[in-house]
């Protein structure tokens, strides 16, 4: 379980393997959200690293790349709601073939923060001749 507050960074240390010709342009994308049928990302809570060092590999070779997710939008009117039911998703993208996904354990990310500053609802009006 990782607890995050505004001002933190979630550092994702990603590993994968490569074989074949050198490749330029692959990206690692990491995000925090909730996994259901699809992965529902929290807007703005993600990070991307462009991978520049993939060489010719005649055998499967391990690579390690870091992706940072800055945490700066918990709470507030438009920010993520605090909670302990979030997960991490990582995607290896812009590669030949399909993107490769990795999902972290369920409910492993807790977002702590203040509740929304002010909320309003249920506006009703009654009126009479005066």
């Amino acid at each position, binding site marked *: 379980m990782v*607890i995050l507050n505004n001002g933190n960074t*979630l550092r994702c240390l990603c590993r994968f393997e490569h074989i*074949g010709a050198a490749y330029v342009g*692959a990206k690692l994308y990491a995000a925090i959200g909730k996994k259901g049928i699809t992965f529902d990302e929290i807007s703005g809570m993600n990070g991307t690293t462009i991978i520049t060092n*993939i060489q*010719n590999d005649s055998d499967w070779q391990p690579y390690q790349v870091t992706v940072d997710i800055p945490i700066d939008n918990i709470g507030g009117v438009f920010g993520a709601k605090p909670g302990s039911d979030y997960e991490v998703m990582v995607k290896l993208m812009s590669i*030949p073939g399909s993107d*490769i996904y990795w999902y972290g354990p369920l409910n492993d990310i807790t977002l702590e923060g203040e509740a929304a500053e002010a909320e309003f609802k249920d506006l009703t009006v009654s009126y009479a001749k005066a």
Partner: protein
Amino acid sequence: MAFTEITIIAPSSAAWNESVQVELKVKNTWSSGFYVYAVGILDTSPRFIDWERAWIGAGETRSFYGQFQMPAYDAAINAYTYYEASDGLLYGDAEESKGISIETLGPAEFRNLTCSYSRA
């Protein structure tokens, strides 16, 4: 008649731009020691072992090391030795050659994505 024997230790193939390590083992087959110069050349250039000089005793073997980046085509590793005679001049002695073929790699493939994370 040559006074040295060259053995080239190198892979028989390499991928484009791969760093290829080469060892030239030079044996003095003469009955006394002398200074030997070793030269290693990929095709006709560049020299990846560039006139390296060493004393090699009678019957002894000395290794010379170099490396180059594999070009995008089949190539030849050429090795030469020269000996320094008592008149101070250099004389060509032995030569040896070994082919190195380009490995054709398939397209890039990726697998086994995993991740660990922590607050930073």
